[in-house]
């Protein structure tokens, strides 16, 4: 059961995107959010589209995974699209459906705004598919480093994340075991009236929580025994090395931003 779940939807690979520093990828998402707003005409959207498709191609990730990443937002995008189509009343009238009228600008705006979503989600999906959860954690920890001065417990947050990630498969296995044990005692998790199934959560959650607390206690003891006493004076085994390709990506992004501004209407 365990191997089935690709945590964080990471797809192993060796593409250049995979090999980028996670900080680069996180920064790209962050900056891209702003950059999409620069587009406001066909040329600019086309340029963004080119960038997105190029990133997808370079990542080597099969298209079906990318499409899967789009699934959750499909309805939002559709809704936005329809909203713009029917709400924007500029430009020549394209179609008259009685109650609803579709104007050219409505259609154009609908497409453009939807594209913003699509591009953003695509870029984010490409990045999560090519970066392991632990790399993301490391990247975040580094990027948030400066905030330590503002008393943000960056190290502790990162450690919490990495320990949580490590325990997800273990907890899933345990959930499975507890479910089986309770099923053997007559609990039905799948059939029966909703009320009964909701009640069935108790014999699942209580043991899970109890065991989770016990784990936490034992883990804390083990960490203490191994000399853990907070982030002070700690060195790091895992390293992130910033390379030329990382700088290049940021430069490309900057270039993209500039081009968009120039090509805007």
């Amino acid at each position, binding site marked *: 059961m*365990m191997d089935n779940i690709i945590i964080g939807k990471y797809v192993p690979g060796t593409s250049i995107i995979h090999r980028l520093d996670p900080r680069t990828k996180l920064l790209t998402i962050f900056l891209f959010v702003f950059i999409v707003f620069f587009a406001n005409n066909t040329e600019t959207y086309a340029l963004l589209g080119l960038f997105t498709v190029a990133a997808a191609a370079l990542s080597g990730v099969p298209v079906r995974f990318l499409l899967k990443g789009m699934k959750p937002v499909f309805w939002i995008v559709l809704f936005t699209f329809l909203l713009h189509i029917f709400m924007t009343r500029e430009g020549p009238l394209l179609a008259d459906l009685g109650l609803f009228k579709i104007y050219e600008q409505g259609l154009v705006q609908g497409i453009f705004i939807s594209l913003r979503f699509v591009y953003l989600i695509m870029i984010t999906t490409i990045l999560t598919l090519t970066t392991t959860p*632990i790399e993301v954690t490391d990247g975040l920890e580094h990027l948030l480093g400066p905030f330590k001065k503002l008393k943000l417990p960056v190290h502790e947050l990162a450690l919490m994340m*990495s*320990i949580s*990630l*490590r325990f997800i*498969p*273990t907890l899933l*296995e345990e959930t499975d075991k507890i479910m089986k044990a309770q099923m053997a005692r007559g609990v039905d998790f799948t059939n029966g009236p909703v009320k009964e199934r909701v009640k069935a959560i108790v014999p699942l959650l209580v043991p899970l929580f109890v065991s989770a607390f*016990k*784990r936490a206690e*034992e*883990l804390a*003891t*083990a*960490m*203490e*025994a*191994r*000399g*853990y*006493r907070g982030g002070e*004076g*700690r*060195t*790091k*085994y*895992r*390293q992130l090395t910033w390379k030329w390709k990382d700088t290049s990506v940021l430069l490309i992004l900057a270039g993209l931003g500039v081009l968009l501004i120039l090509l805007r209407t």
Partner: protein
Amino acid sequence: MNQDRLIAAEDITFRYQKDADRPALDHVSFQVSKGEWLAIVGHNGSGKSTLARALNGLILPDEGSIDVGGIQLMEETVWDVRKKIGMVFQNPDNQFVGTTVRDDVAFGLENNGVPREDMVERVDWAVQQVNMQEFLDQEPHHLSGGQKQRVAIAGVLAARPDIMILDEATSMLDPMGREEVLDTVRRLKDQGMVTVISITHDLNEAAKADRIIVMNGGRKFAEGTPQEVFRLNQDLIKIGLDLPFSFQLSQMLKESGLALKGDHLTQEGLVNELWTLKSKM
């Protein structure tokens, strides 16, 4: 102080709840010498695990003193003591901190501020010592209990302590896992890398130690070589333990009138003596 004496515990008393009538540890004193394998045995609740945790300051005794490698154990010195004592716990999952094998082995080194280049070397070395080099990048849920415990041992080794405490480290493992772990520890001890204290209720495991301390009801019940301790026979059974096979069989044969001399800890020993006896007939 005697060079050879790594740990000296004097009159340790400890209560988990301050108003409990029976203390978890009741005036316990003992010593550990460099290079030996000491087994601390007892039924569940006898105080053996509590004793282990007192040694590296996970709990601090209410009374008595503990000296580890020249350091008096106190709240302030706890972190220095923990550099000298590494501990492997019972539950293989609940001590595995890192996302992969190498991350976990490095954890203790990170805590002690070891520079990265040294860390890389020591992690590789430690993982080799426990024969897990093929699993360096594996995630814990892909490992068996025995493998996880070996990773824990590597984590201890990498930090280069003088002493390794195994706190019931084999009781949740299957027979194969138990064998893997004990073989690994024995090899490391024989190579002089660590002094071993193993907390266990497995008498077959204890039989392989140099010395045994038997705990019962928070007190030290007996101490000596395995042979000396097992001769207490029924007394051990009364306090919830059992005897290793060969030893028990030797006793039973003696009781039934056979002219057996030895108290055998191994099957070979017993078989050989029986052969000698038979050939004299």
